[in-house]
């Protein structure tokens, strides 16, 4: 996956600068509701169920303030990424037991032509594991600034 393809999945409408939720379940519900409001998906109930069932298999809080709830679902036609920042931090049963501040929620259809779902997951983890990137992410207030951090990380690698 090229850097251009990677950044193309980050849409300004699916950017949440200040998530209000204070728990993992509520955070998932809030982000999914955001996607429903913006008509990216038509059925939030099904998506929330799929994401929570995926969490039951093992937390997607992979440490270093990062959570990547993800899943494939019948009700989406395309690979979708929503980014949300929680300033207060959310308990996500993470590997390192620390609160999560950066959430990348990924939805994929069961069948996608480009097969970008797993590469996208890998790319996000690679990107956000860099301490300097996370420091910059904490200050990000807009989608444009997020793209700036993504581009900066690419230039530094």
């Amino acid at each position, binding site marked *: 996956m090229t850097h251009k393809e990677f950044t193309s999945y980050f849409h300004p409408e699916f950017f949440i600068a200040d998530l209000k939720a204070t728990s993992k379940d509520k955070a998932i519900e809030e982000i999914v509701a955001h996607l429903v409001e913006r008509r990216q998906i038509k*059925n939030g109930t099904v998506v929330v169920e*799929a994401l929570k*069932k995926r969490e*039951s298999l*093992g*937390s997607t809080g992979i440490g270093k303030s990062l959570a990547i709830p993800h899943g*494939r679902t019948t009700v989406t036609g395309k690979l979708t990424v929503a980014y949300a920042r929680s300033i207060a931090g959310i308990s996500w049963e993470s590997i390192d037991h620390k609160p999560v501040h950066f959430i990348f929620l990924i939805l994929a259809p069961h069948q996608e032509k480009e097969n970008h779902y797993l590469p996208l997951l890998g790319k996000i*983890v690679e990107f956000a594991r860099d301490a300097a990137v996370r420091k910059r992410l904490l200050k990000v207030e807009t989608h444009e600034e997020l793209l700036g951090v993504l581009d900066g990380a690419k230039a530094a690698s």
Partner: protein
Amino acid sequence: MTSRLEQIIILQDLDLMIREMSDHATTSQLRKIGFELDEVATLRETRADIASKIDRDLLNTYDRLMKRYPRAVAPVRSGVCLACFIKQPTQLSASDLEKVRFCEQCKRILYAI
């Protein structure tokens, strides 16, 4: 309360998650990325619980379709079943979740995306 169609889609998403998480190549890749994954046994228990709440006729139809096809529920866009690409005679609405409709051609359960 979840509708009949939502119940069957939730079941399909879960069945396909169980299938995906039973695939060694996929789970290896996910673990390599950094995710910790338990065994799918708990998902199978959840599956039994969800299936028990779906009416028998619909569940039998779903199970039959899942034996025949990779997926029993097919998305519909602009009136076209995206599994067999046949235009449906009646328009489907994403908000109409109580009626379970079937593709005229392949007989899969339809969901408007």
